[in-house]
């Protein structure tokens, strides 16, 4: 269903990096489940001390599908939903302004933190800290990066809180909606359809009808 949605939205190629990002996790899931699944005895083949099992491989395949489904769902969501559309619609649906702000600020914070980290690393390098080369050196470089990142982020939060309070953030009325989003009958039907599908799928899974443990 996720891939069908992506194909209909024309974002198939742009989802590839999201799928590739799961490789380390998927690899560890496959290795651990296939070779170390507790209690499994249906060995596929014995290679010295290694004994991969069919049960472990099946569990690994299920877990991998779940991870991919989750990662690609996030990909579809982030590639098809502009942040301001999301926040606008959440507000329209009556979600509290603090909750909406937290979501928006969290999304907006990522590029700022990346930018800040780059500035701090450059500054640390200028003072002679080796942040390249051997892995242990790079790990050591995280410590002087983390402290200024955290302290500056906390300072920013305090100042921003004051600035927001001064801009009537706590005012009781419902916020003015700037831009009503179009929401036609097809979209509403699709949303309800997906909701029904999820309920049915969860019920079928819980009842054992799907045969998935």
């Amino acid at each position, binding site marked *: 269903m996720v891939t069908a949605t992506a194909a209909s939205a024309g974002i198939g190629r742009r989802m590839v990096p999201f799928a590739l990002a799961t490789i380390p996790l998927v690899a560890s899931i496959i290795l651990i489940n296939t070779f170390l699944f507790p209690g499994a005895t249906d060995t596929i083949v014995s290679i010295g001390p290694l004994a991969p099992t069919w049960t472990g491989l099946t569990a690994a395949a299920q877990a991998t599908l779940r991870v991919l489904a989750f990662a690609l769902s996030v990909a579809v969501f982030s590639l098809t939903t502009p942040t301001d559309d999301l926040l606008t619609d959440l507000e329209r649906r009556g979600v509290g302004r603090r909750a909406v702000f937290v979501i928006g600020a969290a999304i907006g914070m990522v590029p700022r933190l990346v930018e800040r980290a780059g500035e701090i690393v450059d500054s640390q390098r200028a003072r002679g800290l080796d942040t390249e080369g051997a892995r242990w050196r790079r790990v050591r470089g995280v410590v002087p990066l983390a402290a200024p990142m955290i302290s500056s982020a906390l300072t920013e939060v305090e100042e921003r809180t004051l600035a927001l309070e001064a*801009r009537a953030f706590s005012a009781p009325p419902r916020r003015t909606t700037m831009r009503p989003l179009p929401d036609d009958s097809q979209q509403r039907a699709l949303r309800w359809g997906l909701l029904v599908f999820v309920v049915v799928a969860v019920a079928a899974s819980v009842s054992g009808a799907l045969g998935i443990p």
Partner: protein
Amino acid sequence: MSASTPAPRLSLRDVSYGYVGTSANVLQGIDLELAEGRIVGVVGPNEAGKSTLCLVAAGLAPLAIGGRLDGTVEQDGVDTRTLSAADLGQRVGILFQNPVTQLSGTSVTVYEEIAFGPRNLGLPLGEVATRVEWAADLVGVRDLLPRDPARLSGGQAQLVALGSVLALRPGTLVLDEPTSQLDPLGTRLVGDALADLAAETGTAILMVEHKTDLLARMADEVVVLVDGKIAKSGPAAEVLADPALPALGVEPPSDIRLRAALAEAGISFDASWGPALGVQAAVGARE
């Protein structure tokens, strides 16, 4: 009070303030009044309590950050301790030094950023639009309205932050070094915008500022704050020309420094020459 004297927009009477977790007061016995349409500049050395004075005057201390407040702080005759943050926001706007922390971080355009405050008040969309355009014109950022606030220069971001505060149309503005991130042109733009605002709308402005040239041009009165106390106050021209100013950790405006340097060099300054001509004539006479 006479009928012709308007009630002060902002009034601090015998105000002392100390932060949470500290025993010493940062401000001590501050008395200050700010009438409609007046601009009062605050100068002083580092650690004098200028930023704290801004928080107290804006009512955010102790409302938002806690601490001990003695004395009375009133906005339009109402004790700030009785007002909610939302009420305060409409009575007094505050602008801090760092433009990055002034912006909400959730708006995708400058237009939405300036609309942030009016939208919080639940104003009708037409009124929000009117205020955004008014504030953007006032601070000269109309061209930036479609831009991403996260991609502005420091000076542009500060102008947007100022516009965002002005969009709430507060009767009093408290500005903590609003031009610290601005180049000379930006400083002049903000200074002119604030002077126009005070003259046209009667907004009272309390402005902490190291750039005494700017204060000499736009402030009606100047207060010198040292160690949390008012060391000197009075008409701007008088206070800024006080020869004791450097000893208090404040750099006088450039024309005052120039006159002092000329006097030290034994060159008399004739005010009738005018600023630029005067310098040329004086230098020519010496040569």
